[in-house]
């Protein structure tokens, strides 16, 4: 039996339209295109040079959600890429081998530059070295040091700013033929900050009971514009205004989170989730939560592009390059494990969650390495039980619905048991 039609809010429709427009722009052949990564991306800077922003992770996600990524990954493995490595990379390489068709059905142009923003993920470095082999286009490295002691240092900031000044901006000027105008950047950053204010307001609404939004499955839609090609634009400001209006309405009506299956009738469980979602079975995965009455009130994945709600970061037009550096440094996976633990534990407490669920991704060591320790530390700090499930980003071979469902059911039972006991329950799911 086919699934009932997906229920979508107006903001979701607008968001989808924005992403489609960006693909039309990228594939139009009328603009210069840079491939770059989501975490800490430099969208405002690219806009200063009229360069369109193509994000390979988003392409892989789109291909996974339309069930194409499996074949692409197999194709990459056939050409010598190991089964053990990141499936985003393999989906990207497989997509190229299969004609490099964008989600709008038009062929991707070869990028004019690869902006290797090396932020929070080692694989990025290898990914663009691999793409460079194919495209043979200018590749610009922006090395973002790891905030290993929990906070960026002056040396790290200065290093990034210097790379921006001496390497990244001159390369963009050369590729685009447009001279850098710092006031143009300031204006974009001003707009970024405005949208970011509404974004943070949105994230914090899930402190309410019931939460009017889901901050993991729903969150990926809400974060779309800010983490992709729209930060710094009026469109993003308008989008977050629209979203805010929708959420205010939901609050007024006392509605629970919206899901593709419709309004969640009752909020039974409130969870914080760590790790990216699985994209190949995204709707099935979400449905498991819907059926159990589980809403995700906070997630680390809504911080993957940049963190706004932990230490109050906003892009700052008065410190344009420094602010970009700060944004890159603050990316969730660029923060050390004690900071990630603190962030998640605070989320569990402040959002009055029943516990922390970790979706551990096979091919993402940046997120996954250390998650078992993270879970135990958060349990210790909050007294709330944690649970652990394993899936993958875009490789359908690593999503076992029955296994995930079983684990989730056990976890919800554990939460019930803990509630009944009014004290501690066994902690491991």
């Amino acid at each position, binding site marked *: 039996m086919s699934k009932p039609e997906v229920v979508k809010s107006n903001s979701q429709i607008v968001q989808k339209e924005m992403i489609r427009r960006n693909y039309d722009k990228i594939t139009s052949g009328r603009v210069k295109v840079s491939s770059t990564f989501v975490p800490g991306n430099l969208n405002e800077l690219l806009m200063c040079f009229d360069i369109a922003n193509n994000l390979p992770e988003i392409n892989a996600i789109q291909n996974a959600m339309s069930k194409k990524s499996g074949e692409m990954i197999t194709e990459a493995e056939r050409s010598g890429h190991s089964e053990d490595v*990141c499936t985003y990379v393999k989906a990207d390489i497989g997509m190229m081998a299969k004609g490099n068709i964008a989600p709008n059905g038009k062929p991707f142009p070869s990028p004019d530059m690869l902006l290797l923003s090396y932020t929070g993920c080692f694989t990025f*470095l290898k990914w663009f070295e691999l793409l460079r082999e194919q495209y043979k286009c200018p590749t610009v490295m922006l090395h973002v040091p790891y905030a290993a002691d929990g906070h960026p240092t002056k040396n790290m900031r200065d290093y990034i700013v210097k790379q921006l000044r001496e390497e990244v901006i001159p390369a963009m000027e050369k590729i685009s033929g447009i001279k850098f105008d710092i006031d143009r950047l300031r204006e974009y950053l001003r707009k970024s900050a405005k949208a970011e204010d509404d974004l943070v307001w949105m994230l914090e609404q899930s402190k309410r009971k019931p939460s009017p939004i889901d901050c993991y499955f729903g969150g990926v839609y809400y974060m779309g514009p800010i983490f992709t090609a729209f930060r710094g634009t009026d469109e993003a400001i308008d989008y977050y205004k629209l979203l805010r209006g929708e959420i205010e309405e939901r609050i007024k009506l006392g509605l629970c989170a919206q899901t593709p299956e419709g309004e969640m009738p009752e909020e039974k469980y409130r969870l914080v989730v760590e790790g990216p979602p699985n994209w190949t079975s995204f709707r099935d995965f979400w449905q498991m939560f819907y059926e159990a009455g589980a809403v995700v009130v906070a997630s680390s994945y809504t911080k993957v592009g940049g963190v706004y709600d932990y230490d109050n970061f906003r892009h700052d037009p008065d410190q344009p390059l420094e602010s970009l550096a700060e944004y890159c440094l603050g990316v969730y996976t660029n923060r050390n494990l004690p900071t990630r633990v603190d962030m998640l534990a605070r989320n569990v407490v402040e959002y009055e969650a029943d516990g922390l669920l970790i979706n551990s991704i096979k091919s993402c060591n940046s997120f996954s390495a250390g998650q078992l320790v993270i879970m135990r530390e958060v349990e210790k700090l909050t007294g709330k039980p944690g649970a652990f499930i394993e899936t993958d980003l875009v490789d359908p071979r690593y999503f076992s619905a029955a296994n995930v469902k079983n684990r989730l059911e056990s976890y919800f039972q554990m939460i019930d048991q803990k509630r009944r006991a009014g004290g501690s329950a066994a902690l491991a799911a």
Partner: protein
Amino acid sequence: MSTKNVKEIVEFCQAIFEDINFTKAREWKEAVPGRKVIGYMPVYVPREIIHAAGMLPLGILGGGADMEVIHGDAYYQSYICRIPRSTIELAITGRLDFVDGMMFPSICDVIRNLSGIWQLLFKDKYVRYFDTPQNFDDNVGGIFYGNELRELKEGLSKLGGREIRDADIRRSIAIYNENRLMVNKVYDYRSNAPWKAPSAEVYLLMRAGMVLPPEEHTRLMQEYLAAAETENRSRRDNCRVVLTGAFCEQPPLPLIKSLEMAGCYIVDDDFMLVNRWILGEVSTSGDPIANLASAFLHHSAQTAAKYEVDMKEKGSYLLDIIRKRRADGVIFAAPSFCDPALLDQPMMVSRLEALKIPYITMQYAENSGQMQPIREQAGTFADSIKLWGAP
């Protein structure tokens, strides 16, 4: 100079290799009150600064093939390589209790996040994630790296309770220059006469350098070279291979032996690259921090953990080694789930294919036990080179 024979030297090294309680390092620490030991993981840290602080740099390369990992598996999912779980096992079981600090180089996300686990689990220890620049301009990456080195110096100075003077670092640079020179002599010797210096012996000799003070390690290598020269060992009709990809998690010793038994003389490798990371002498005059930074930026090995700015240069380090060592082929031996090695491999392979250089690929874990498939694969590779001039 002593007159130890090869057997004695190799037994001495083997004992150090097998000792996962690091007795030699413990003895070094206990010999003088106040001494400190700093552990470091692959692939590169500037040991000169640790040494200049009067501390012992101790290479931690996982628990090896024989250590039973009981606790470590509770820290890592099955799809993460073995070195972090066996390293955690070493720590949880008290085998690293004497280690005062740990350094985690910027090699991959797993080792990076291991630094965070250390911060969470061993709060009383000095923990340093050591970031090296991916920008190789003196005025950009060089300044960043110089400051990172200064920060490391200050951190160790605080830990050790004494100032680290420039003169101390210069002296340590000289000691490591000498050590590196000797390491390279051993590698050259093996390449020239691989039957006289079997790779398993060279490997154990280098592993000893992860535990012993550099001065002692240098003497040991001198002794080995002298002793190896007196040995009467027969030359086998093996092919000559470069082994690459094993720069972090180490293969089990039987794997190295199996390759040679199967007909492949290893004439170069990237095991324990820290020994040979810097390609030339580091200057001992002037600002020692600037000298170390400059050596890293301009005279260091190319590996998967380092960005290659110029695509045309990608793989040139491997190709140069193949030429220099007159290798017949390459064995890509990467640990399972090793992002740097496995993501880099297709690019390296394409360079070899363009030049019709034979290669094979294999994966291992530090506790891999089945050597028969390895022997068969390597044997077939050796035969294909020797008999039919592969490919």
